[in-house]
């Protein structure tokens, strides 16, 4: 596990939140604050808010309707590495059907958005201890507003 104690070259901010819908907005605010301290542009900050909220939402909807969700942000000068853990039953990946673009499918949007908005995404699933989603976004030179 990434920890400030093991690796003094970067900072870690951790949030522990109830696995409940009403607190997702708090995670978004915190992520926006963290991202704005790095050199992320406005669009990247919105991407980060959405990706983290989607990950947290999946913990609430699919992992456990109580318990705790942990969001760990490892802050590097050039990237943000965010891990979202839950204490749920996990899943095997087969549940993630590929999205057919242009069809009105209600499901499968969350993981699709996370994969699209973040640079690197990986799941570690342990049926006894829950799911850990790690996602990375690199700081890019800011694009001028469109």
């Amino acid at each position: 596990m990434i920890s400030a104690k093991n690796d003094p070259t970067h900072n870690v901010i951790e949030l522990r939140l109830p696995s409940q819908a009403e607190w997702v907005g708090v995670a978004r605010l915190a992520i926006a604050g963290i991202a704005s301290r790095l050199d992320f542009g406005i669009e990247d900050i919105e991407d980060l808010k959405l990706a983290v909220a989607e990950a947290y939402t999946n913990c609430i909807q699919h992992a456990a309707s109580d318990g705790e969700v942990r969001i760990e942000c490892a802050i590097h000068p050039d990237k943000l590495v965010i891990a979202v853990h839950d204490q749920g039953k996990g899943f095997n990946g087969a549940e993630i059907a590929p999205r057919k673009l242009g069809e009105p499918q209600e499901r499968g949007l969350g993981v699709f958005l996370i994969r699209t908005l973040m640079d690197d995404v990986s799941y570690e699933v342990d049926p006894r201890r829950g799911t850990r989603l790690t996602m990375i976004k690199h700081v890019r030179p800011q694009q001028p507003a469109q």
Partner: protein
Amino acid sequence: MDINVDVKEIPGKNGVRVVDLNGEIDVYTSPRVKETIGELIDQGHYDLIINLENVRYIDSTGLGVLIGGLKRVREHSGTVSLVCTNPQIKKIFDITGLVKIFGIYDSEASASAAL
């Protein structure tokens, strides 16, 4: 972090309803949007304009509510038109391919004119 939901009629467009949303649509607030859209469809309103101009944020549960509404009105040959000007929200409809299944307009007037 909250949502305000208002429903309006459009003069001269019988049966059409505008759902005016203001705030953020996420896993916490989308049930309220879903309820309003569901009630309108239950009442027989199959042409809906969802005004997202004052929506600063939408996540997949919000998109799911819009898609679910679209599916239901389509059974009655209805439509769901979205009014959306925020570039970040437009981007979400773009990358999910939902631009292809919703009519997306720059203003309530143009959404209403297209009906």
